[in-house]
């Protein structure tokens, strides 16, 4: 049964990768990175049981925590960029 889940996860990862490559906006890519992260967590959990090594679950835990930081960092980045753009726009309008 683990195989079914593993294959489903792998196919979903491939689909998410297609979305990441196609875009079209940067936010679509962030979405697929986030999806990819959670899929990796599931994949690692399943592989841990497939291989009979429950101690691999530490890895899944690390991913669940770290992926969030990566996504937040990217978003913070875009937000500050948007803010800068809006500011420049308003400055231009004032002049």
């Amino acid at each position, binding site marked *: 049964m683990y195989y079914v889940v593993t294959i489903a996860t792998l196919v979903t990862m491939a689909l998410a990768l*297609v979305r990441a490559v196609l875009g079209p*906006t940067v936010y679509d890519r962030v979405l697929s990175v986030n999806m990819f992260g959670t899929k990796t967590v599931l994949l690692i959990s399943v592989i841990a049981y497939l291989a009979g090594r429950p101690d691999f679950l530490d890895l899944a835990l690390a991913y669940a925590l770290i992926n969030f930081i990566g996504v937040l960092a990217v978003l913070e980045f875009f937000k500050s960029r948007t803010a800068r753009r809006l500011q420049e726009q308003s400055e231009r309008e004032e002049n």
Partner: protein
Amino acid sequence: MQVVLDIISWVLLTAGGAFVLVGGIGALRMPNLYTRMHAASVTDTVGAILVLGGIMLQAGLTLATIKLAAILLFLLITSPTASYALANAAMIAGVKPEAGRAPDTEHDS
């Protein structure tokens, strides 16, 4: 008893796999960003709950179950937050939520 648990866990795992797959297809096929997020969130919540729940039943009452519960808890906290932050950032940047096949206005700018 063990057989019953096994059957429940198999059902959970298969259903989880199905949800993950459906979410993946949705994230690829949906017409614009917000609908794609809607599809992707299925994999992060229902998919994760079912898959990790299925593994938990297999693991029984061990340390591994607690770890799995922690993973599930963190996933359930973080992924909606990430989705929210993503939608918020996209909204501020001017990606419009429109029904139907809205042409994506901003291409990687």
